């Protein structure tokens, strides 16, 4: 069976799960239906692993299968529906299928007492379906369709507990903020479609490379520089990624999205959907010009640093992880912007594993907190607040162990997966800063800002992750009553944690070499950086690769030192209590308050954009309702009504009179002829036959 067929089956199975849960889920005997969804998604995992194994057997960096059908045929311009399977697709399919399967399993226990249990699984199904769709799409239009489907399912799942106002609001916020990014993406797609006349990646890249793009720009816009337009197209499409991957300034929805169930956060808002933006950037990577890449890198780098500074001061367990996710996504985007393509996609994969693990493990803690709070009949204490935890290490050993592994991984400690990818990204920024002279960022001599962001974020990441661990699992329990009722989560929740914990170590990513510092792994062999297709002023990828070689070791040592400093600070503050965090906060003053309040981004949006906008709407509405409707529309209405009354009188007398006359005539005729009717069809049939015979006879004689 070709890979394309397999990927189509993978695509369809979660949709079946969705339809099944929506139409039949509730009718099943109490909570048995989830196993059908789980079976379907595990089947997709199995198929994805088959594809993955096939890929490893073949070991072809250039492996590529594509099939498509025409969907919309508009003469010259055609929109196709198609499937593109290459190594990136397969790796992404495995990641999505794996995380989705584990979250399905985990949710059985986590959502056990939920009222909309079957709906929840149905929505997981449609999310998985649309994520697969994004993964296997071979053109921008199709990816856009599934992009919006993903947004929809994210909205549905964030608002799963819509009785809570905050959850409903968070869903709406996520939806609207994402739309802003998607408008940019749509505009970018339209630019591409107008100039290049296709949505298909491959065809598009070929047309750009062959100069058809430049010719198209010349024909359509005359004096515009084709490279500038290409930069704009890339940046606009990248806007979609800004929204979906929660990059500054559209990052505000992701922390609020934590109102959804925790497994959802793990699946959608940490591992897969937010990575879709990165995946999109990976897909369009060849058409990014150096200028566009500088923009991408700057956005990513700033987001990485900015979100990390917020994460330091948050007290809500999931909020910390949410900002950490934003920060790590910034890393990936930054890596792509600096040209470290493989490193960016690599970080996507490793991050999916350890961040899903972090969320699921925090879900385990929160679940148990809820559990004991319910037993204590306490409905006011916040189950997610770290200030109520502490010392959980002894009560939840498995959760603690995997949490620790994931934290080491995200902090970039050797022997763990995060080290490999993060180190590659940092080396990439170093190389970019040192060796690249294209793009406005380098020309403005601001190249070194990226390593600064990168290493700064790495320091802060190590610090806040260990702050999180120390506050939650170490020290004295802050609430003895809650602590007494805590215990380890059930098997169905810990098994996914252990699987992901194993996958957060280096070994799965460095094979076939066992070098914990990297080496020539299958990943670096199979994921090949595509040739850039920008015809003039292309990114200097050879210089970059050379720089990467030089920067490898310095960047590694720096990042190790930086991570060590971060962890050490956390130990000093929260274990040894050498520094009092409250005093630190007071001394830092405005910086601390800014970080605690997320640098006032929500307030800036509220007062700077939303309120003025609403005021403007009110004014326009006033004009529309009070002035335009009242005088223009109603005025015309009154005159027409008067006219109609006059016409009506004429109609009644003249026209109806004629019609009634005709009616009376035929009434009389009918009354006259009704005596022919006997009511017996067979009589009529004989009349008809006699008539036919007479016609025949008349014709003959």
């Amino acid at each position, binding site marked *: 069976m070709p890979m394309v067929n397999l990927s189509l089956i993978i695509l369809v199975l979660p949709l079946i799960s969705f339809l099944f849960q929506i139409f039949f889920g509730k009718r099943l005997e109490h909570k048995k239906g989830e196993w059908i969804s789980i079976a379907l998604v595990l089947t997709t995992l199995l198929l994805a692993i088959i594809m993955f194994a096939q890929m490893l057997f073949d070991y072809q960096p250039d492996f590529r299968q594509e*099939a498509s059908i025409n969907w919309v045929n508009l003469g010259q311009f055609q929109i196709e529906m198609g499937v593109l399977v290459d190594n990136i697709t397969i790796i992404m399919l495995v990641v999505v299928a794996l995380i989705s399967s584990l979250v399905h399993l985990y949710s059985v226990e986590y959502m056990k007492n939920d009222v909309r249990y079957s709906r929840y699984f149905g929505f997981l199904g449609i999310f998985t379906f649309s994520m697969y769709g994004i993964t296997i799409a071979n053109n921008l239009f199709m990816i856009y369709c599934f992009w919006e489907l993903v947004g929809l399912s994210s909205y549905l799942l964030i608002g799963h507990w819509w009785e809570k106002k905050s959850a409903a609001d968070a869903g709406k916020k996520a939806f609207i903020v994402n739309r802003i990014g998607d408008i940019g993406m749509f505009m970018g797609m339209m630019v591409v479609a107008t100039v290049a006349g296709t949505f298909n990646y491959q065809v598009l890249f070929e047309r750009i490379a062959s100069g058809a793009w430049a010719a198209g720009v010349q024909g359509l816009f005359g004096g515009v520089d084709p490279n500038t337009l290409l930069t704009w197209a890339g940046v606009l499409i990248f806007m979609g990624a800004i929204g979906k991957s929660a990059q500054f300034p559209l990052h505000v929805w992701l922390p609020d999205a934590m109102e959804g169930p925790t497994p959802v956060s793990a699946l959608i808002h940490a591992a897969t959907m937010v990575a879709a933006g990165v995946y999109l950037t990976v897909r369009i990577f060849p058409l990014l010009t150096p200028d566009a890449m500088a923009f991408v890198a700057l956005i990513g780098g700033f987001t990485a640093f900015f979100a990390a500074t917020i994460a330091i001061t948050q007290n809500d367990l999931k909020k910390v992880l949410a900002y950490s996710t934003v920060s790590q996504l910034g890393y990936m985007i930054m890596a792509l912007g600096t040209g470290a393509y493989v490193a960016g996609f690599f970080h996507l994969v490793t991050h999916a594993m350890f961040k899903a693990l972090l969320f699921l493990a925090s879900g385990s803690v929160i679940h148990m907190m809820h559990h004991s709070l319910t037993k204590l009949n306490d409905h006011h204490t916040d189950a997610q607040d770290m200030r109520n935890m502490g010392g959980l290490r002894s009560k939840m050993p498995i959760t603690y162990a995997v949490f620790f592994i994931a934290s080491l991984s995200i902090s970039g400690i050797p022997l763990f997966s995060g080290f490999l990818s993060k180190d590659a990204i940092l080396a990439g920024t170093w190389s970019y800063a040192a060796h690249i002279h294209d793009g406005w960022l380098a020309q403005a001599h601001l190249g070194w800002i990226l390593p600064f962001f990168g290493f700064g974020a790495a320091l802060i990441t190590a610090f806040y992750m260990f702050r999180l661990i120390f506050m939650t699992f170490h020290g004295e329990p802050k609430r003895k009553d809650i602590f007494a009722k805590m215990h380890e989560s059930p098997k169905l929740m810990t098994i996914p944690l252990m699987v992901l914990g194993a996958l957060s170590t280096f070994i799965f990513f460095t094979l076939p070499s066992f070098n914990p510092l990297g080496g020539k792994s299958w990943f670096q062999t199979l994921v090949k950086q595509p040739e850039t297709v920008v015809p003039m002023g292309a990114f200097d990828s050879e210089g970059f690769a050379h720089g990467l070689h030089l920067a490898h070791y310095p960047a590694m040592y720096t990042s190790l030192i930086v991570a060590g400093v971060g962890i050490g600070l956390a130990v000093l503050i929260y274990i040894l209590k050498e520094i009092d965090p409250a005093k630190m906060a007071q001394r830092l003053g405005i910086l601390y308050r800014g970080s605690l309040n997320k640098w006032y981004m929500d307030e800036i949006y509220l007062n700077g954009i939303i309120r003025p906008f609403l005021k403007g709407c009110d004014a326009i509405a006033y004009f529309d309702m009070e002035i335009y409707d009242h005088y223009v529309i109603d005025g015309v209405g009154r005159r027409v009504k008067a006219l109609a009354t006059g016409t009506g009188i004429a109609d009644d007398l003249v026209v109806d009179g004629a019609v009634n006359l005709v009616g009376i005539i035929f009434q009389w005729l009918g009354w006259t002829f009704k005596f022919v009717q006997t009511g017996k069809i067979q009589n009529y049939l004989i009349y008809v036959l006699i008539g036919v015979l007479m016609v025949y006879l008349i014709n003959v004689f």
Partner: protein
Amino acid sequence: MIDAFASWMLQFGALSWLGTTPATILAMSLVAVAIFIFVALNALVLVYVERKVSAFMQVRLGPMRVGPMGTLQTVADALKLLLKEDIIPRFADPILFRVGPWIILLASFVAFAAVPFSPGWVPADMSIGLFYVVSISSVVVIGIVMSGWASNNKWSLYGAMRSAAQIVSYEIPVGLSLLAAVAVVGTLNLQEIIAAQAGVGNLFHWIPIPFPNWYIFHSPFLFLAGCIYLIAATAEVNRTPFDIPESESELVAGFMTEYSGIRWALFFLSEYANAAVVALLTAIVFLGGWQSPFADLAGARFGMISLTVLALIWTIFVKYKVKRLSIYPIGTILALTVIAWLFPAFAIWLATPGLVWIAIKGGVVIFLLMWFRWTFPRLRVDQLMYLSWKVLLPIALINLAGVAVWMWLTGAISLVG
């Protein structure tokens, strides 16, 4: 076959004075007589087998007195039936009462015209053979209704109406499940359907275990289609557990209540002829007809595996229950297996003529039917209709689509050009 037979007769010295037309007529008559003899013997044998099988299933002996092991019991019964007084009830309709059984027998008899017994051995090689057999078996219902009505007895009438409703309903799952196989092979000619199942391939075309290319192993969907066909066909020939038209406890004997003697024997003949048609059709469409599963080396390997499995099953399940029976069959099978392992050529030799293979396969299916009869309780009328319309029909429809999807997946057909 008839033309070949006729020309053979013309070449034969003593008959060469016959013209072409008389020879053809003679050949036709001979084939018809042969089939009739087959139908009659079939009923005799199957009645005996049914009694014996039921006896073994109920752990008793069955007929033992007449002839060795009771083999002549059915002959004696047939003689008794022939000598019985011919009774027609006074208020029955005399013409229809007489004609009804003959229509039933004729319908089940004519169905054999398209059944291939061996390569080339088919009375009439029709391009629409499968459709013909299915359609002819639906004529039986008219005869049943005719007899039931003519008896002028409410049990007969109820039995006839139930039977009509049942046969008409179950024709649809039968047709759909056969259609699944036809969709794969692309012809209605029974000979071609069998020829398409030659050789040995992978199980379900995917799992690398050597299995014959029979359609029941072609895909999971065709396996399901085979199961549906067997269930629905059991219902179409009115056998237990679907024998509500003649259920003794409710309707005395259904549409045959008023019949006795020779006409009753006709009903019996046709019942077993129908069972034989169903069994042969199952063997042809799903089990490879007269194809031997051991026709080549791969097939021989399949044979070894299956024989080993059979021997294991026999050892595990049967040995502990009926000790006496276990020694000889298991010895034979084990010996065969060993020989087959040692000398593959012997296993190939097992590829005996088609007539034997189709008889074995048909026999297995008939045994299945008897097994059903003596294990399952009878369904109620509403359950019967429920099973047909709400269970078998939807499954068969989805299954048909599944076959198409499977063909697409395995690359037999393609949607995108």
